[in-house]
């Protein structure tokens, strides 16, 4: 969720009202944005400074903090799909319309009769790297420092969010008086692109410029990889071969906008045309507020590689037809059509009632790219009506409550094992590769564990294929406890399984460990017998086992994680379902457990059956 910092007093000026923090918070809550923090430039710098003090402080930052403004800044959280609220202009406009203090502006293209629009000609090579461009012009803009900063901040916010760090869309803005159409959008070998970039004083070719940013510019270097490996770089030229920008990296110094700029040329280059259009619409609809003819935007003709001509921006209002019944039935309300129309107006959505009084003809403004479906319109009605004014109803759906048998058995068994004197632990499914294999003296055969490709930390490299390592880690972290320590966990191990559609499956298992000055092998063995007793599964050699469809037995095993001669595999029928024994001292040493440990690990899934021994496993997918 993006957070936008706005100057409180400027915002209140636009709202025409001074709120207390609490009142404003309430207004935000109703609209679905959130007043996240109340701060100031000075306070933010002070906080930043405090965090650098440990590293010896930063004198430049200290000076900045001392000089910084104490004007109050509201940090406001904006829903991730409301790109039209990423600047103070958009927030104020939305809230004004919501409160009924302003009506929705009509966004228009300038009347171009008798005039030739500026042209942007796209060369076919751009398809190799960044195929799309859309443009627009804002005429007669009046900037002041606050507006100018807001204009820059909006582009930043869009780059961070909708533009996915400039990978999908990059915005360039230019002082139109310094450049001359028609413009071209080209893709050229980097050595051939030469210009003075913004904030630099000398000319670079694009190849050396990328190297320069990689080495010297913390902010820009993260965008370099977007085009770095491409044989051609995207570039925009004016009629006199002045470079406008090298998207998505940097604009040229020549056409930089200043506080005195009046006519602004905006270009958005993209790999995703839909998003480029939304980005362009967002920038122009927000700042057309300051144009000589407010809310009017001069279009630019884009001539694509095939010669097709399209006029941008596309400020058309999208029509959407729905019914009042749809809205009311979705929300659980009985609002009359007129009321719905009125409520939608508060959300910047113009609607007209059809002749039957039920049909709603809705005009979605170019600012509301978040509206995809009639349900989005219905939500706006709900917001304007107030979520907290909607009458509640208990759903009439009658169904039977039911636990998943696997989980129900887990619950029953957990209680029984705790009754046997074991303490329950709860450990992570994600472990390091070493914990799952090397520490356990178990070789990685490559067909056992699920592997993560991009873990943020080395602690989470694989999904555990056995629960025992987690129990041993818990013992190590609690080794100063009084002995004996008896722990258990009933949880899922995750194993590769090519027979499953996703290639892996969970397996519900019990792990129990006994840790004392002596191994306690017989205690763990006894727990196995007890668990089987409560599961109603008799020992194969027991006379009582005759006639039981399920029995269990054990026989000596050779698992490398266990001590030789003090371990046994557990079977039901011919299938091995578990293991118990004394944990190998080298395993204990790897986990830094100083005492002997006996352990039991048992797959519970074969025992998920009802009193008729019918299996109750219900896998989610095959």
């Amino acid at each position: 969720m993006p957070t936008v910092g706005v100057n409180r007093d400027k915002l209140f000026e636009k709202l025409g009202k001074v709120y207390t923090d609490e009142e404003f918070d309430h207004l935000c809550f109703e609209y679905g944005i959130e007043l996240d923090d109340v701060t100031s430039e000075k306070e933010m710098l002070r906080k930043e400074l405090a965090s650098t003090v440990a590293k010896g402080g930063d004198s430049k930052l200290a000076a900045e903090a001392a000089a910084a403004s104490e004007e109050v800044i509201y940090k406001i959280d904006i829903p991730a799909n409301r790109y039209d609220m990423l600047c103070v202009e958009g927030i104020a406009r939305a809230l004004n319309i919501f409160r009924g203090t302003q009506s929705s502006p009509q966004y228009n293209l300038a009347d171009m009769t008798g005039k030739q629009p500026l042209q942007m000609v796209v060369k076919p090579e751009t398809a190799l790297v960044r195929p799309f461009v859309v443009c627009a012009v804002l005429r007669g803009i009046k900037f002041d420092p606050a507006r100018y900063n807001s204009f820059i901040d909006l582009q930043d916010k869009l780059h961070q969010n909708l533009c996915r760090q400039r990978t999908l869309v990059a915005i360039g803005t230019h002082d139109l008086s310094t450049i001359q159409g028609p413009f071209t959008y080209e893709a050229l070998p980097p050595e051939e692109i030469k210009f003075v970039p913004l904030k630099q004083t000398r000319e670079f070719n694009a190849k050396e410029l990328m190297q320069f940013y990689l080495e010297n510019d913390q902010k820009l270097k993260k965008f370099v990889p977007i085009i770095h490996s491409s044989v051609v770089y995207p570039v925009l030229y004016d009629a006199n071969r002045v470079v406008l920008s090298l998207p998505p990296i940097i604009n040229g110094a020549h056409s930089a906008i200043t506080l005195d700029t009046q006519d602004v040329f905006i270009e958005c280059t993209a790999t995703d045309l839909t998003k480029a259009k939304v980005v362009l619409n967002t920038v122009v609809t927000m700042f057309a507020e300051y144009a000589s003819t407010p809310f009017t935007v001069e279009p630019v003709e884009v001539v694509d590689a095939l010669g097709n001509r399209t006029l941008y921006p596309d400020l058309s209002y999208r029509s959407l037809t729905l019914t009042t019944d749809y809205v009311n039935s979705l929300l659980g309300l009985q609002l009359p059509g007129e009321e719905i129309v009125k409520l939608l107006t508060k959300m910047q959505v113009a609607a007209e009632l059809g002749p039957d009084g039920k049909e709603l003809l809705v005009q979605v403004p170019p600012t509301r790219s978040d509206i995809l479906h009639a349900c989005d319109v219905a939500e706006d009605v709900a917001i304007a009506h107030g979520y907290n004014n909607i009458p509640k109803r208990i759903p009439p759906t009658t169904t039977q409550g039911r636990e998943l048998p696997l989980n129900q058995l887990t619950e029953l068994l957990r209680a029984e094992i705790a009754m046997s004197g074991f303490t329950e632990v709860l450990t992570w499914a994600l472990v390091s590769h070493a914990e799952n294999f090397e520490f356990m003296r178990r070789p990685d055969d490559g067909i056992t564990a699920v592997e993560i490709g991009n873990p943020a930390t080395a602690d989470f490299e694989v999904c555990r294929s056995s629960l025992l390592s987690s129990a041993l880690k818990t013992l190590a972290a609690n080794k100063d406890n009084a002995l004996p320590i008896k722990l258990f966990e009933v949880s899922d191990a995750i194993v590769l399984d090519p027979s499953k559609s996703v290639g892996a499956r969970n397996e519900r298992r019990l792990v129990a460990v006994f840790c004392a000055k002596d191994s306690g092998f017989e205690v763990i063995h006894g727990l196995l017998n007890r668990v089987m007793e409560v599961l109603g599964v008799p020992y194969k050699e027991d006379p009582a086992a005759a006639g039981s469809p399920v029995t269990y037995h054990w026989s000596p095993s050779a698992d490398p994680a266990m001590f030789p001669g003090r371990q046994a595999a557990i079977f039901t029928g011919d299938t091995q379902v578990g293991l118990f024994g004394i944990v190998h001292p080298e395993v204990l040493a790897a986990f830094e457990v100083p005492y002997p440990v006996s352990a039991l690990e048992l797959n519970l899934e074969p025992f998920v059956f009802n009193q008729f021994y019918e299996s109750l496993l219900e896998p989610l997918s095959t």
Partner: protein
Amino acid sequence: MADLETSLLQALHAQEVIADSGDLAKSLGVEHIVLVGTIRSLQASEMITAEDIDHFRYVLTDEAQGYLTAGSPEAQVFNAVPAGEGITLAELKARVSGEAGDVGFKQAMQQRWLALDKSDVGEPRVVRKVDAIVDRTQQLLADVAGGRELPKAEAESLAKKRKLIKPEQWKTYKLTKGPKFALERKKPATDLTFEMMSKGTWRMQEFKDYNFNALGVPPPSGQLHPLLKVRSQFRKIFTQMGFEEMPTNQYVESSFWNFDALFQPQQHPARDAHDTFFLTKPASTPAGRGVDNDYLNRVKSVHEMGGYGSVGYGYSWKLAESEKNLLRTHTTAVSSRMLYRLANQPGGFKPAKYFSIDRVFRNEQVDRTHLAEFHQVEGLVCDKGLTLGDLIGVLNQFFSRLGLKKLRFKPAFNPYTEPSMEIFSYSEQLGKWMEVGNSGMFRPEMLRPMGLPEDVNVIAWGLSLERPTMILYGIDNIRDLFGHKVSLSMVRKNPLCRLGL
């Protein structure tokens, strides 16, 4: 010990008074210090009274022990000097070495037994000044060793100046019968025993007072983990409300079910490697496995161009992106599979209420409030004609079972629900509104491609299990609740979970 106690009581019984316990110890053939223990114990039981007798004497220091036979240092030095021409200081030092030599020479000079002759050229010589001496110091030490008293001045000189003797004080006792005197002690019992009961001696037995200020002995027991106790209560609440538990025991999921089926666009930030654990093994779920081809095409098309009344996202949907395997980021991946199943089951759609509580995974740095895995609680109702009012109603019902009776709702955004509502609850304890969960109605772009009838709506909500547990049990660091570093005493000492009572 008991013998000693009996001997003492009998002696006292016979003599009425024991003038000095020191004598009694001697007569019993034990060290007095051994007898003191018995005296104190009997005194505490008021069987005898004891009156202190202070004693004082000098004893030899360790240094002095050696002089008892070898003679005092000054005598040793004197004897080392031959009569007549004497010897040099160096020679004398060789004969009587160490401290005895130094002290002895100084003392012998003071006593004027010896003199230093410097008349000759060369080294001065130590010569005898008297022919014979009496070693008074040795005599005095012998007296002390023999327990004889010394003249006061000489005793003090030996003790303070020469530190050859030291004072020693000790106590013995004059013993008389106490108020509870008896020849045998009756010890009060600490506990009622089987033996007392079988012999009937409990009737005569005196019992020691019980210390009611101490805690009892903790019973040997196992314990359940607090987070899972909370999980048990949540499961009860759901089943009591008629919800059926979903099979969430599958952590590995394809991007298709985790994102695409939920109408989450492929460029959505949540699908970044920064947020999601993508797998290298098993790396993908081929589209042909488990997803019906027609359904897959409907999902592709709704993303790209919309449909079912939607305009879609207008981008090029990539099959390969949907095949990428991951660790599910939410249990809603399971909900999407269940809803698809519900739409396509034999006999057609039937209303359902589902819930689940299970682990989900986020590729995040672990800190006080974030873990890479946590438990998501999810509930959903799927039926014809459900409304936002139904969602508000069911949320009020559910949260009031958790003790959160005052709710309000904030508009929110979620890619797969519309309308979406954040759930806030008023905390009387904290005096403020707190976010307690998220909710919404699943989007038609998610439900319609699955084949659910057009009038079927799904209302759903979710929250984490960890947050309410941390609030309930007063835990402020999530790492103290979940993971191997959790303290076992936290697990052992937590109370019942009363949610849903």
